[in-house]
């Protein structure tokens, strides 16, 4: 797959995608609610969110299969809303791959070029380059039904990049592959995108997929963008409770802010309280949010505060043990590294819960 020559054959100038206050409804079902996004040239960008939140709808809008009720979509600075799908030069890889079963792999890949009336010799060259890029030159004459899932997926990608689209859209491209293939193919996709420098939008409901291959992620829920940022930013500085709990496991503990002796404290329950660092702003009605690995059980000098708790249950996960611990009236998960030979706390045991405050955040919604 490492053919610099092919890349230069298929490379194109990267463009940006600008989505401005887009609204869309299916009947009374308001599916996209004022979406604003800017995807930078050459960026690998993800739409991440639970199933049914409108990711596919937004992607199809960019490709021209849906029509927005309001707002505009600009590709490379050019408004495309009025263009039909076949005039947009926005390449889409479908979730089902949509390879035409009555055509060979080669014919599938050549299709878009033929539609563009590219000269025959040029078609030959670009089809060969695209197939080489995805490592399938040797299967050019097969029918799609004679290929494995991973190969079909690569044909679908080759078919799309052969036309040198301005933007590449991928709708859950890994969802029809088994777990092992998924890891391999997502690396290949990342690799390919890097070499082509092609602006790419990747739709997924799987946070691990998005985290591992994307530069930036837009987390979506219920038709609205919740937060945009790099995987690390989203994990460490979630903008709201949805983002916090959708990316990884988060403990969300309700409580109230009280003042005592000029210091702010967060009271989880009567008597169970912890100090709030001075630089942290805590909005009205906010809840304490922290990750399981940012807490510990027993005396741990590295932690900032210590709260009394009771072990409810434990799960052995291999490298760690995840405890469910009752703190006040809240139940939290705590990950403790597993050391061989070390005993596991039994349900009902009284423990000290240590917490690192600089990793904790307070979020209202």
């Amino acid at each position, binding site marked *: 797959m490492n053919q610099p020559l092919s890349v230069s054959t298929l490379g194109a100038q990267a463009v940006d995608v600008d989505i401005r206050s887009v609204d869309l409804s299916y009947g009374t079902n308001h599916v996209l609610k004022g979406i604003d996004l800017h995807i930078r040239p050459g960026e690998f960008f993800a739409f991440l969110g639970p199933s049914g939140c409108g990711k*596919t*709808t937004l992607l*199809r809008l960019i*490709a*021209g*299969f*849906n029509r927005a009720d309001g707002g505009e979509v600009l590709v490379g600075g050019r408004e495309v809303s009025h263009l*039909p*799908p*076949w*005039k*947009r030069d*926005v*390449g*889409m890889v*479908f*979730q*089902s791959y*949509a*390879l*035409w*079963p*009555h055509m060979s792999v080669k014919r599938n890949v050549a*299709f*878009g070029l033929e*539609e*563009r009336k590219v000269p025959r010799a040029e078609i030959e060259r670009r089809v060969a380059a695209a197939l080489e890029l995805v490592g399938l030159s040797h299967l050019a004459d097969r029918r799609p039904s004679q290929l494995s899932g991973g190969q079909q997926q690569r044909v679908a990608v080759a*078919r*799309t990049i052969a*036309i040198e689209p301005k933007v590449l859209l991928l*709708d*859950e491209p890994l*969802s*029809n592959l088994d777990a092992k293939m998924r890891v391999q193919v997502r690396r290949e996709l990342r690799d390919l995108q890097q070499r082509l420098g092609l602006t790419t939008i990747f739709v997924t409901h799987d946070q691990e997929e998005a985290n591992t291959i994307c530069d930036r992620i837009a987390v979506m829920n219920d038709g609205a963008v919740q937060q945009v940022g790099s995987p690390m930013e989203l994990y460490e500085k979630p903008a709201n409770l949805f983002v916090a709990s959708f990316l990884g496991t988060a403990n969300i503990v309700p409580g109230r802010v009280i003042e005592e002796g000029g210091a702010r404290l967060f009271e989880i329950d009567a008597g169970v309280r912890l100090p709030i660092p001075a630089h942290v702003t805590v909005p009205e009605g906010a809840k304490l949010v922290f990750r399981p690995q940012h807490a510990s059980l027993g005396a741990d000098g590295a932690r900032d505060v210590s709260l009394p708790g009771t072990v409810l249950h434990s799960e052995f996960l291999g490298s760690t043990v995840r405890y469910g611990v009752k703190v006040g009236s809240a139940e939290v998960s705590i990950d403790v590294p597993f050391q061989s030979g070390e005993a596991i706390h039994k349900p009902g045991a009284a423990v000290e819960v240590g917490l690192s405050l600089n990793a904790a955040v307070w979020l209202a919604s």
Partner: protein
Amino acid sequence: MADATTAGRAHAPSGPFRHFMTSATPGQLALALAITVFLALFLIIPVGTVIYVAFTEKGTGTFTLVNFVDFARTDLFIRSFWNSVYVSAMSVVLASIFALPLAYITTRFDFRGAMLIQTLGFLPLIMPPFVGAVAMLLLFGRNGTVNLLLNDWFGFRIPFMEGLNGVIFVQAVHYFPFILINLSAALRNIDRAMEEAAQNLGCSGFRLFRRIVFPLAMPGYIAGASLVFVKVFDDLATPLLLNVKDMLAPQAYLRVTSIGIADPMGYVISVVLIVMSILAMWVSARAMRGKDYATVQRGGGGLAKRQMRPWESVAAYAAVLLILLLVLAPHIGLLLLSFATIWSFSPLPDGFTLAHYGRVFGESFVYVKNTLIYASLAGLIDVVLGTAIAYLVLRTKLIGRQWLDWAATAALAIPGVVLGIGYLRTFYGVQLPDGTPLATLWIVIVLALAIRRLPYALRACYAALQQISVSLEEAAENLGATKVRTVRRIVLPLMAGGILAGFVTSFATAAVELSATLMLVQSNADAPLAYGLYVFMQSAAGRGPGAALGVIAVLLVALCTFASHLIIEKSQKAKGAGH
């Protein structure tokens, strides 16, 4: 069938049931034997006799090809052969022209009334084509409504119904639903993403249809088209009624009825008819092989049908209306005719009357009664055989059970006229104690109808049984039910919907079938509706009552079909709620 058992061993039991089966019980063996005897007596031996006669010398019984040489040397037969091929092919073309826009528009666009169109599209099937032929003559004939108006306004006529044109027109109108049904199903089964991917790569409009949609729907289209070809090739009554005699099926009938049952030519033509049927089915099977393009919807966004632009909408409605008007013309014409006092040389009837219905209800009700009896019995035989064969094939390990399925399905390739000739030849010699030949009994008509419709009922029963998980039966046996009781209490109730569907298909099509019966009806008192219609329609005076009888036939079949549709839907719903 003698070596059937040994040959059957090579075919491993198919489907997910192979672990379930235990060796056959005596009851299953007896059942299989009974079915074998039935199929042998009423399908294999009569058809075998026809083929045997075609290949042997008259009188001596020695093998010869001289009959086929005679066939090839007779201008009339060769002309008839090519006429049949031409008419069948052109009927397919015309039927495609009717079906293609309807199928495409109703499956691909947000089109109001799509359901209604798909339903209306079935209507032509429940009326025998030859009945429609008379109505079509009155509407499109030389002096029919359309040509009279054309002549008045523009001074020319269009020879819709002249000679072979008439047969093509009538057959296309009658059989186009086969293409509509298959093509619609194929179009509906294409993943929308297949088309969207093409649009995404720059393809649209007619190119999209030509490069992606049509190739993907091709297997479905071929299946429908080959069915139409076979049906038209085999049809006897329509050409006869339109006074076209130089086609193959009418020739077979005329030889046997005018020259006699001993004349070999009728048998030779029969063999040619069988060969053409098999050929068409082979073509269709080849087209389907390895091309199961039905792509299940994966991934979102596939539901939407495209919205039409205003001008597209207007064009689509105009096209759909015109086609519907054309294909429903026989029904409209028949209805008019059934109420008409006199209708000739005028665009519309001179006056209207109820007299024809009175006459039909008075003296011709015996036809209706016979049809109800014959079609019900045939349907019953079919679902009993169909269920039994499906059970033996899917749920037992009986050696050679696939052969039962194949033998029953082989009836598809046997034209009605051939079966009729075979029955006459085989059963005329067999006499009852009082001296009447077996072939003259009305029950023979029932048997012929049952054999002709068996393949359809069998497929319905087969599908119904296939959908029932074996574990349901295992659960019953695990709780102490014997095989027989399991079948009665679990299998049959769950199959009920499919069995009823099979019965209706058999009943509805047997009620309007004529090609086999035309040969076998011996007296008016034993004649079914289709035969009565044929007799009426042959004389100008009989057309009014004939039309009334036709309307009754259509209503009868439509009503039965609709009623059973309701029942099936209800039972399906009840079953769905139970899960």
